[in-house]
């Protein structure tokens, strides 16, 4: 642990801030490799202070292929910074990066993109459909979503720096699965709420309720294909409207 103390609060703060731009140079060759080197740069400057040659080589190694969920990239960056501070051989660091990138991607994708984000945005949408001011809905969404987002980045960097190679065990101990399950339940509840509120505006007739129920069933059946189906329906409605308007 003594080696990590050389990465003081200033370095950690700069790494955290840079982690917000980890995907800035996303490309089809090294994915977020350059972004990882960008986060690690302040730590590597400290570790290799006075040895420009070693610093260049270390940064070069970390611009190679890497991928992860963007919020959990901080976990990898923290752990790698620790390994570099401990002067762990580059081959070991490369093996570590290859080992963690898949799991950091899968964990984040499932929890954040698949569960937390739809749940948060449905909360905001439901509030506005229920009559709240626009900013209440938008703010509720952003606050709920970013509570997890910001925690993941800050916790990830701190935990990575603390645990280094042992990060796998720490990640297994965090209840990401349970958090995802709870978010999915809340999301399903909010999806039902928002669908009903959207289907039945104030003073709506029985046929509007029935049409709304049918649209909901169709939406569940179509899944992600609902986007194309809705676009086709709207194009047809536009053409029919234009024709009707002229007759």
């Amino acid at each position, binding site marked *: 642990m003594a080696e990590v103390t050389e990465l003081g609060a200033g370095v950690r703060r700069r790494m955290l801030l840079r982690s917000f731009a980890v995907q800035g140079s996303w*490309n089809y060759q090294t994915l977020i490799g350059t972004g990882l080197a960008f986060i690690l740069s302040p730590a590597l400057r400290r570790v290799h202070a006075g040895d420009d040659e070693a610093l260049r080589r270390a940064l070069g190694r970390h611009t190679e292929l890497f991928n992860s969920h963007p919020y959990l990239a901080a976990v990898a960056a923290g752990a790698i910074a620790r390994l570099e501070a401990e002067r762990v051989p580059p081959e070991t660091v490369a093996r570590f990066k290859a080992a963690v990138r898949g799991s950091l991607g899968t964990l984040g994708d499932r929890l954040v993109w698949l569960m937390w984000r739809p749940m948060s945005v449905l909360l905001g949408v439901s509030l506005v459909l229920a009559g709240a001011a626009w900013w209440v809905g938008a703010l509720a969404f952003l606050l709920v979503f970013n509570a997890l987002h910001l925690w993941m980045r800050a916790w990830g960097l701190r935990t990575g720096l603390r645990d280094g190679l042992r990060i796998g065990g720490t990640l297994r101990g965090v209840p990401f699965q349970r958090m995802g399950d709870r978010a999915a*339940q809340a*999301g399903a509840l909010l999806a039902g709420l928002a*669908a009903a509120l959207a289907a039945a505006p104030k003073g709506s007739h029985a046929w509007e309720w029935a049409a*709304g129920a049918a*649209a909901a069933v169709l939406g569940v059946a179509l899944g*992600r294909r609902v986007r194309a189906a809705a676009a086709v329906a709207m194009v047809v409605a536009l053409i029919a409207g234009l024709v009707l*308007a002229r007759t």
Partner: protein
Amino acid sequence: MIPTAAQTAVLALLGGLVALDGTSVGQFMVSRPFVAAALGGLAVGRPMLGIQAGIVLEALHLAVLPVGAAKYPEGGPASVAVGGVFAASQSPPVAASATLLVAVLVALALEWVGGYSVERMRQFNVRFAGSPPEGVTPREVARRHLTPVAVDFARGAVLTLVGVGVLDLLLGTIDFSGFPEIAVGTVVRLAVVAGVASALRLFGRGNYPFFLAGAAAGAAVAWLR
């Protein structure tokens, strides 16, 4: 009726920023259609109208997942453009449902153009990837990383300007007099219902009871209001 030059400039700036938020910088989700369209509306002084367009676009964007190198439609800049122009077009209010329908269709097309431009940008960014055998300096890493960020901002701003221009042109060309407003409004509303309900597929079949409970609560609220 249309956004002024100053409002258009603000929309372009917002479009660039939400393009960054989508992937490159932040990912605070200000780029979600629900928020981005409200910001577009705010830029022309009518955020509540902007968020109306945002809700429709969000419902149709819920199941879009930015996983790995998957290609997906980009919602942010399109939502800013459409939220802004739709809100500006409703002063005074005229053919709101028909205008919203056209705005949403333009946004959906622009989202695909945005997704295509993201893919091309990622190919372009390859020239900044990798490193020579002697390694790279911190300054070089920053240059290689931040140049694509600047390109992404410019891409988002241009895309937003294109959206503003196209929608503005269409709304100025199409004659909405005699348009069946109620029927068109119903189609848009049902698209929202179907889109929101499609999110259940993300949450899994085991959560159907929660969906039904939410729908019952929503129906009760709708009944009472």
